[in-house]
């Protein structure tokens, strides 16, 4: 699972920077050296992103399941909500990690905001995949977004 989530978030390293990637992948500073530990943060962050995407999917397609809210732009709004929630989750999670990063990694709060953005994109991708896979059982939204 670490490998899968690291691979997915790896697409966005250019956004939030290599140093934050090292830390989230599990590297720790021991003096000036990098040592690979067993604490890969991509997995819990990714699982939360996936969970939020599933939660919003179930809410939209099966709980609310509304004939009034089944146009493509309603779905886009839900996807944006998923992204916004995970944007703040990603940002908050990485900001909380700043004190644990050690002196060998240079990570700024701005990188945390950018990771939040990457997390939002990842969660939106999850929401898109889940929507297309699971929309068919919804009576009102089976053709949403198209």
């Amino acid at each position, binding site marked *: 699972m670490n490998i899968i989530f690291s691979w997915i978030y790896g697409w966005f390293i250019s956004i939030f920077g290599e140093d934050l990637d090292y830390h989230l992948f599990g590297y720790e500073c021991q003096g000036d050296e990098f040592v690979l530990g067993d604490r890969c943060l991509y997995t819990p962050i990714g699982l939360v992103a996936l969970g939020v995407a599933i939660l919003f999917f179930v809410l939209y397609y099966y709980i609310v399941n509304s*004939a*009034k809210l089944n146009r493509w732009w309603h779905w886009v709004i839900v996807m944006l909500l998923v992204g916004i929630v995970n944007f703040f989750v990603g940002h908050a999670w990485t900001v909380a990690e700043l004190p644990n990063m050690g002196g060998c990694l240079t990570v700024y709060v701005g990188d945390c905001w950018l990771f939040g953005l990457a997390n939002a994109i990842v969660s939106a991708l999850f929401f898109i995949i889940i929507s297309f896979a699971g929309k068919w059982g919804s*009576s009102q*939204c089976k053709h949403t977004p198209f």
Partner: protein
Amino acid sequence: MKVYVFGIGGTGSRVMRAMTMLLASGVECKADAIVPIIVDPDAAGGDVERAATLMRHYGEIRSKLDFSSKKQNRFFRTEIMETMPNFRLPLSNTEDCRFDEYMDLSGMSKENKALARLLFSQKNLDSDMKIGFKGNPNVGSVVLNQFEDSIHFQNFANDFTAQDKIFIISSIFGGTGASGFPLLLKTLRTSNNIANPNLVNNAHIGAITVLPYFQVQQDDESSIDSATFVSKAKSALSYYLRSISQNNTIDDLYYVGDDTRTTYENVEGGAEQKNNAHFVELISALALIDFANSQNPNPERSNAEYLQTVHKEFGIEKDSNEITFVELGQKSKKQLRKPMTQFLLFAKYLDEYRDFMSQPWVVDRKFDDNFFDSDFISTLKTVQSEYIGWLAEMAGQQRAFTPFNLHRDPNRVFDLVKGNSPRGVFFDKNFKFFDNRLNGTRGESKSGEKEQQFAELFYLATEKLVKDKLNID
């Protein structure tokens, strides 16, 4: 089993209009088919034309639908067969002809001429046959005494089977109906000059006699004077008692009338004679359905000793000038409330709502623009618009039948049935809730004919809607 329905005069046509509305909405009728036969010399009469056009549209819609046993749709379920041109039994020698010419008064002997002048006023003799008998049953009784000679009447007798029934609709206070009913009944019961005389003579025959329920404006130029309606009805009733009820020549005889009467414009006939719909006509149509669903009280006509005529009248639970479903008796309420509400919802959806093309019920079944522009939908909308108009007409009468709130407010779609508040808190509201139920209805297989899928889907969805929102089942 078919029910041959003879609608005599203007009232006959208006009751047929009501019957068509009830059958379109799916009111249960146990007959496989209704065969309307309009008997009215006034071929251009507005009421005749309106009823015939409506029944033709009904037939066009129904021809696209399938009613095999697995189908649940009840809209347009009972067949209305057109066996005569424009549903009319043509009357011979009534066009472009005055009554004296019809009788060949000038060719009569002096004695016969004197007798004719004794029986008919000069106004009677000068009257134009093509616009009916204008409230003169004495004229009608001469002109209508020709059923046996009609090829179309012979065709009716020829097609008649042992299971079939006959129902006659007429008013008692006019000319055509009052004179036509006893003559027609006599022909049906006694004529040997028709095909299948045994079957027709012994058939299960019912009739509704409509007592005065409207009046016309006083007009000294007109032959129709509503001051005579009650006296005419009385003398006709006395005649019916002697010649019909006491002889048991009819199996079921229904009476309906109303002493609260709307005043109509005084029109003798022709296209202008198009009276607004009235509750009494709806009740008369219900009498026809009651008759279609009933058993023959005289299955063996050969034994005159045991013959009986069943007389039926209609009443409402509570006297009111504004009748809603609440004022109806339990049986009528059960018969009418659900189907009429369902069909009104169906009509409102197609008439008032546009934003449905992206809904799953449309996309899944590939109901495209071509389908919504088709003759089927256009005819359906015409009938539904007539239905709403028919309800509005009844609601505008002196004694109004007004069970529905006929508004077009998109925010109060289910605030529809008077005395029945919409219930339930749902996320989707109004027409979106309608869409919700359409989307959630499985209905007809998606491979069937589109028209059939459409009707089945709307029937099942409106059935759920009236149950969920209005607690009607």
